[in-house]
C-alpha cells in the first residue's frame, strides 16, 4: 500500500447519499407507525442511524483490508454463514410466519443477509481457483452449485423464498460471467422451474402474490392490497410528490412502508424527481461497480467486484420492480434505504470491499498508465 490511498470516490459518495437519504425516509415512513405501536416515533430512526454509523465504520475498515484476505477466508466465512443459517432454523425468532432473525443480546441479526456476501466471496474464490475447469461439469459446474445450493436450501427453509431465489440468480450470473456453458445454466433453470412452481403453489400466500401481480385490480382489498396500495402511493405522487413527510399511504395503508415498500413512499412524497434520483444513484453505483470489476487487477477482484455490484444492483432492481408492480412481491429490501440493520451493515461492508478493490484497480491503472477519470483521494 502506498501512503496515497486512492479509491473510487463516487462509489463512496453515492453510498453515503443513499444511506443518509435512507435514514430520512425511514423516519418519514415509520414515525407514525412507531408512535402507534412502540410509543416512540424515533424508534426506527434511532436504530437505522445507529446501524448506519456502525456500517460506515465497518466500511472504512473493509476499505483498508486488502481484499485478497477474503480469498483466504472464503471457506471460514462460508462455514460461519452456513452455521448461522442452521442456527436460525434451530433457535431463530419467528416473525410473521418466517424464522429469519437471531438475537444476540439486544441485537438482532439476519443471517440470510450475511449469506449473500458469503456466497459472493465463496464463488469468487471458487471460480478463480477453478479457472478454465469451470467449463467442465463434474469439476466446475457441479461443485459450484452444490455448496451454494445447500445455502439456498437453508434459506428456503426459513422460509425466505425471495432471498433464496435472489441467491440463485446471483449464482447463475457469476457462473455465466465465469464462462460456464449456457446449456448448464439453462438446464439448471429448467430443473429449478418445477421446484419453484411447487414452492409457489404449495404456499398460498406466494400464489396470492403471483395472482395479484398478474391482476392487481381484481381484489384491491384482499390479496392485491399491498401492490395496489404501493401503486396508489407511487403514482399518486406525481412529478414533485406530496412533500417529504406528507405522504398518506404510509398511514397503515401501505404495509411495510419503511422496509420493502419504502421506494413507494419516496415516489409519493418526493415524486418522480425523487424516484429518478434514487434510480440514477443506483445506476451510477452499478456502472462504477462494474468498472471496478473490469479494472480489477486479478480474476478474484473481478469476480468479487462483479458479485458485490450485482448484489446491490440486482436487489435494488428487484425491489423497485416489485414496488412498481413489475415483479411479484418478493420480500427484498432496497439496499441502504430500507430499514434493516443487518442488511445495512452488510451492504456497507460490501461497498467497503468494493472500494478496496477499486483502490487496487486504480493503482493497477496508474501502473499501467491507463487514465482513470474518477477522482482520487487519500
Amino acid at each position: 500500500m502506498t501512503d496515497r490511498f486512492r479509491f473510487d470516490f463516487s462509489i463512496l459518495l453515492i453510498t453515503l447519499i443513499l444511506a443518509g437519504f435512507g435514514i430520512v425516509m425511514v423516519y418519514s415512513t415509520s414515525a407514525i407507525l412507531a408512535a402507534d405501536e412502540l410509543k416512540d416515533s424515533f424508534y426506527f430512526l434511532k436504530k437505522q442511524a445507529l446501524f448506519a454509523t456502525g456500517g460506515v465504520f465497518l466500511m472504512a475498515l473493509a476499505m483498508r483490508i486488502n481484499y485478497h484476505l477474503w480469498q483466504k477466508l472464503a471457506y471460514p466465512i462460508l462455514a460461519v454463514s452456513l452455521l448461522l443459517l442452521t442456527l436460525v432454523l434451530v433457535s431463530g425468532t419467528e416473525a410473521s410466519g418466517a424464522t429469519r432473525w437471531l438475537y444476540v443480546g439486544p441485537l438482532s441479526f439476519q443471517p440470510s443477509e450475511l449469506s449473500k456476501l458469503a456466497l459472493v466471496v465463496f464463488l469468487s474464490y471458487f471460480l478463480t481457483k477453478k479457472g478454465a475447469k469451470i467449463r467442465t461439469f463434474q469439476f466446475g459446474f457441479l461443485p459450484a452449485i452444490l455448496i451454494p445450493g445447500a445455502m439456498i436450501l437453508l434459506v428456503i427453509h426459513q422460509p425466505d423464498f425471495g432471498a433464496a431465489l435472489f441467491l440463485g440468480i446471483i449464482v447463475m450470473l457469476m457462473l455465466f460471467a465465469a464462462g460456464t456453458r449456457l446449456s448448464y445454466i439453462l438446464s439448471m433453470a429448467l430443473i429449478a422451474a418445477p421446484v419453484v412452481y411447487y414452492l409457489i403453489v404449495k404456499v398460498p400466500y406466494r400464489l396470492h402474490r403471483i395472482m395479484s401481480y398478474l391482476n392487481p385490480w381484481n381484489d384491491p382489498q384482499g390479496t392485491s392490497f399491498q401492490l395496489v396500495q404501493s401503486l396508489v402511493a407511487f403514482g399518486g405522487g406525481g412529478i414533485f410528490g406530496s412533500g417529504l413527510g406528507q405522504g398518506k399511504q404510509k398511514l397503515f395503508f401501505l404495509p411495510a412502508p419503511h422496509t420493502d415498500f419504502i421506494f413507494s413512499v419516496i415516489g409519493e412524497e418526493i415524486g418522480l424527481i425523487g424516484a429518478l434520483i434514487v434510480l440514477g444513484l443506483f445506476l451510477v453505483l452499478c456502472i462504477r461497480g462494474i468498472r471496478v470489476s473490469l479494472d480489477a487487477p486479478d480474476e478474484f477482484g473481478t469476480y468479487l467486484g462483479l458479485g458485490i455490484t450485482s448484489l446491490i444492483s440486482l436487489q435494488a432492481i428487484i425491489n423497485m420492480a416489485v414496488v412498481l408492480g413489475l415483479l411479484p412481491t418478493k420480500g427484498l429490501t432496497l439496499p441502504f434505504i430500507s430499514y434493516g440493520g443487518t442488511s445495512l451493515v452488510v451492504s456497507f461492508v460490501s461497498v467497503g470491499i468494493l472500494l478496496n478493490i477499486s483502490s487496487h484497480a486504480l493503482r493497477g491503472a496508474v501502473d499501467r498508465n491507463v487514465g482513470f477519470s474518477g477522482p482520487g483521494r487519500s
Partner: protein
Amino acid sequence: MRKKQINWLKFRIFLIFFLFFICFVLILLRALQLQIVERENLQELAARQHQRIIELVPNRGTIFDRNLSVMAESTEIESLYTHPRQVKNVRQASRKIADILGMNPRTIERKLRSQRPFEWLQRKILPAKAEKIRELEIEGINFLKESQRYYPNGWLAANLLGFVGIDPEGLEGLEFQHDRYLNGHPHRVLLGLDAKGREIITELLVVPTDLPSYSVVLTVDLNIQYIVEKALTEAVKKTRARSAMALVMEPQTGRILAMAIRPTFNPNMVRNYNGDVIRNRVITDAFEPGSIFKVFLLAIALEEKVTQKNEIFYGHNGRYQIGKEIIHDHKRFGWLTLEKIIKFSSNIGASQIGLRLGAEKLDRHIRDFGFGARTGINLPGEAKGIVRNPKSLSEVGVANTAFGQGISVTAIQLITALSAIANGGNLMRPYVVDRIIDQSGNVVKSFTPEPRRRCISLETSQEVTRIMKAVVEPGGTGTEAAVPGYLVAGKTGTAQKIDPLLKKYSNENYIGSFMGFVPADDPRLVILVILDEPEKTPYGGVIAAPVFKTIAERSLQYLNVPPTEVTASPRVERSPNYYPRTKRRESFPPDIAVQPDGVMPNLLGLSMRNALGRLGKSNVEVQMSGRGLVVKQKPPPGSRLKEGTVCYLRLRPPS
C-alpha cells in the same frame, strides 16, 4: 490466450451490466407511466381511501300540524361503531359489548374482526346503554351522534306521516313524499383518514354544504285527528271491523283535517309491522262504494235534469228485473220520491235513474266528480280506482254503477267529491301540506286551495244537500248521524264485498259507511267513515253513522262552530208510511209539490194516482189508457200548459 479469455470475461460482465441497464430503463419507464400517465387515476384512488365523506344528516325537519303542534321530529341519539383494527382484545370486547346490547357476541366479534376500516356495531342505541359502553373505555369503539326520528303522538296519523329509514330517509307517507324538504342537504364532512380508519387530526377538513332542512306544516289538525282516531278506535272495538278509516276535510278548500286508519302502526317501532298496516289505505286502496255513491247519482241526475225533484219512482217491491238480472232492495219499497230513494237508499230507484241517464252521461259525470283519476293529493301510491268504460257497460252494469257497484273508488276520491257537493259544486284538489317553512319559520313554499273544476251547479248542490239532510232526519237510514243543534247532510252505505273465492258478492262481508257534512247549509266539515267487514250488523247507518256523529259533534265543538238555528225541525216526517206493504194511496208522497202552474211535469214512471196528483192543480183535461205506470205522456215535460190542454197518459203494468 489468456488475454483473449479475459476479454471474454469482460464481455460477459458487460452483458450482465447491459441486463442491469435494461432493468433500470424498464423501471424508469414504469415510473414515468405511473407518475405521469396514470397519475390522475391513482390520485383519485388515493383520495378515496384517504378521505371519507361522512354525511352527517342534519336534524331532519319537523312535521307540524296546522297549529304547529309537533307530529314528527328528530332528536339526536348515539350510534355505536368500531374501527376494527384498533380493537386489541376482540373476544373480550365483543363479549362485554354484546352483554350490554343484548346481542350475540359472535355478531359483534365478526364485526370487530372485519377488514374494513369502519363498521357500525349498532345504530341508535339507548342513552343508558351507550353510557355503559362508554364506561368500558375500549379503544376502537366509538360513538357518533345520529338523528333519530320520533313521533310524539305514536300511531296518531301514522299512515299519513309514514316513517323514515335509519339513515334517515323518508320511506313512506309524508316523510317519503316531502323527503326533499325534510331531509334537507346533509352536511358533508370530509375527514382525512389513515388505514385504521382514524381521523388524521391535521387533515380534518371542510364542512361545505350546510343547507338546513325544512319543516312541513300540515293542514291536519291534531285535535281533530285525535277526535277521529279515538272515535274510530271505539267503533272498531264495538263492531269488530277488520279495518276502518275516517277522513275529515274542509269542503271549501280541500284541506285534509284528519286522516285515520285502522289497524295502524306505531312509526316509532315500524319494524314490527308489515306493509298492509303501514300503507295509507285512504289513498292506495280502492273499493266498491255501495250506497253512498247514490249521492253522486242524485247530483248527476239533477244536473242532467233527467228527473225532477218531485218525480216519484216505483220500488217494484224490492225486486227489479233488468234483463236477466234482478236488482234487490233491502226493503220492499213501493213508490219513492227522489228524496226517498236517497233517504231509504233504494237500489231499484237508483237503477232507474241510472238507466235514464244512460252509460255515457253517467260516466262523464262520474269522472267529473274525480272518480277514476287521481285526486293529486301529493301522497305516495295514490290509486285511481276503476270506472268502467261506458261502451262496455250493459244495462245492468249501468244500474249497478248507479248504486255504487261495479265501480271502485278511494276514500280520498269520495270525500273530495262530496266536498264538491258541500261547497256548491267545485271539485277541489285535496291537500295535506299547507306550507313548508325554514328553521326560522319563514315560508319557503306554501300551498293554496286549488279548484280543479266545477262538477255540478250551485242549484244541484243545494238540492242534493236538501235531500241528504233527509237521510239524517227521522225515518232516514242515517238518523244515528244526527248531531244535536246542527243540521247534518249525509248518506249511509252498506256495500257487499266481492268474495274473492266465489267471485260473487258476499252475503257475509260488507263495508258499512257513512259520509256527510255539517253544518249542512254552511258546511265546515266533510266527514267520511268506512268500516270494513264489521262482525255484527253491517249497516252503515247503524255502525258508521254514530262514528260520524261523534267526530262531527266533538270537532264542531272544538272549532267553536255555532249551532244551526233549528226551528223545531220544520220538515220532520211528512211521510210516516213508506213501507211497500202500505196501500198505494198512502204511499202517495204528500211532500211532492205540484209543478208550478202552466208547466207540464214529468209523469213518466208514476202511477195513475200520482200522475193525477201532480196535474191536480192544473186545469187540464186528462186522457189515460192502460193500467200501471205512466210510460208515455203528451205533451212532454216542461211544456206550457194552457187551460183546457188535453194531456194524454199511457200506462202499462210494471214488468
